[in-house]
């Protein structure tokens, strides 16, 4: 999967210790351009530590981070030119106007002076900041400050975008906009998004890594189709269920059935067919993904999965 595309980020044996506590334990993964990776884990799992190391804000205790082939420890300036980083709290200066702040960020990222107005205009358009260029950042709402932080991370058109809880504090409309933006960015760049919310990662990411206590529990794709779980009052034999048109495959599980739908049909068609057959529909739900099971197991709530 990664080998076919250009590897933008390569993490090898990443470990970070705070005193005797290991915040990260030997993380290994790589990410290609065009991939959106969700870093998922409960609070204190090591997500922010991991992102700070990937952004070059923190040195690892051991291990290497390569950004487009450049070692972040040995050649930090070259590597950081390719990185756009939005920390947990947006790094904005309250006393600056939005335009001034983005101009400052552009200069920090060594964008030539003549290209700065165009870069600022593009980022403002991308992040919905068009009407607030002259406003002081300290006077803006949390949502707008978050957008300004996001614009600052994107000003130099980075190849690797690292976003720590990017929708934190946003209202539902803004959340939808940011998710759309992340998907759009993921078409060209490699994007890493951290979150403790399953829905957040599921909405924006195509691949997920679950972290708990600094260790990687799971690394897999999210875009595989999921089965349905069906519970009936008067369960028929399996062969009768398999004979229904919307059913492609089915198996008995925990007193019910796990059903895979045929191509081109939906859960509504299955529900209709079950009701028409008179089997007494009690429950029809989507099966939890491995991700959810792993996540709940990682936070010690295995029974909830």
């Amino acid at each position, binding site marked *: 999967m990664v080998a076919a595309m250009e590897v933008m980020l390569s993490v090898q044996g990443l470990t970070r210790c705070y005193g005797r506590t290991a915040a990260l334990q030997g993380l290994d993964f790589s990410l290609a351009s065009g991939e959106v990776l969700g870093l998922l884990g409960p609070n204190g799992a090591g997500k922010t530590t991991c992102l700070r190391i990937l952004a070059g*804000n923190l040195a690892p205790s051991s291990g290497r981070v390569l950004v487009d082939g450049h070692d972040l420890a040995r050649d930090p300036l070259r590597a950081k030119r390719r990185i756009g980083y939005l*920390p947990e709290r947006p790094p904005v200066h309250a006393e600056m106007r939005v335009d*001034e702040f983005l101009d400052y960020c552009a200069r920090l990222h060594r964008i030539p002076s003549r290209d700065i107005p165009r870069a600022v205009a593009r980022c403002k358009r991308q992040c919905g900041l068009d009407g607030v260029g002259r406003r002081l950042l300290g006077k803006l709402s949390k949502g707008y400050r978050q957008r300004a932080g996001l614009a600052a991370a994107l000003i130099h058109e980075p190849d690797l975008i690292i976003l720590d809880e990017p929708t934190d504090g946003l209202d539902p409309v803004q959340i939808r906009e940011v998710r759309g933006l992340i998907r759009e960015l993921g078409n060209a760049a490699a994007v890493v998004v951290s979150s403790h919310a399953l829905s957040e990662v599921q909405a924006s990411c195509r691949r997920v890594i679950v972290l708990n206590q600094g260790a990687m529990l799971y690394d897999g794709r999210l875009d595989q189709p999921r089965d349905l779980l069906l519970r009936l009052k008067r369960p028929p034999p399996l062969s009768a269920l398999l004979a229904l048109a919307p059913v492609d495959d089915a198996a008995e599980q925990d007193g019910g059935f796990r059903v895979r739908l045929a191509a081109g049909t939906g859960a509504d068609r299955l529900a209709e067919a079950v009701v028409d057959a008179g089997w007494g529909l009690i429950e029809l739900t989507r099966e939890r993904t491995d991700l959810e099971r792993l996540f709940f197991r990682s936070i010690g709530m295995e029974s909830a999965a």
Partner: protein
Amino acid sequence: MIRAIAAREWLSAFRTPVGWVLLAATQAILTYVLLEVVDDFTGTEPALRSAGINLELSHNLFGTAAVLLLLAVPLLTARALAADPRAPERQLLAAAPVSNGDILAGKFLALALLLLPVCLLPAALGLTLLGAAPVDPGLLLASSLGLWLSALLFAAVGLFAASLTIHPVASALAAYALLLMLSLLSRVEQLGADTLGVLDWLGWNQHLFWFLAGVVRLSDLAYFLLMTACFLALTLRRLDNLRLA
């Protein structure tokens, strides 16, 4: 790059009350000192002092300004580097392709520019007497240069102290301790030492004294530049090590 960081710091000082309060407080105190000096030279009884008005002006105005700077600069530098490494500003700079040297140079340049008008205030006050008294502009210029160089040294010491701890109050206290040590070194003779040698040279106040007397000596210029560079180099070393902490 350095210019962008310095411009932002400078803008921040004057968009917030910090720069204005510093200028206003210095102006108010120095104006009082000026009136005290002028008072000695007016009235029915002429001043019976050995020093003329020029030396009185330079010693009192610039001496007071130096003490004010010694008190103010550690407060200005306390938050320059001492902020929490997870503070937004630190994260913005740390994630940008900017070296620690550029960050330090930008912060130091901003402090130098912020302190320049403060250092010119005593000269401006002295020059208000130009039509009424034989004021020596050369002496005021030399004194201003000495004061600014002292302020730069204080800034370098303050930045070094700020790099030692993430707590602003602790860094300000460390800067005061270092500056007081540098102030008292040349007074060790009071403890009974006959010759001070290098200790005498390390104290900043006696080097400023020559500037206030209107004498610009190469050795004093070298002292301020070397000591400032030394503290900046120590700060840079500390910042480079900080990432591993």
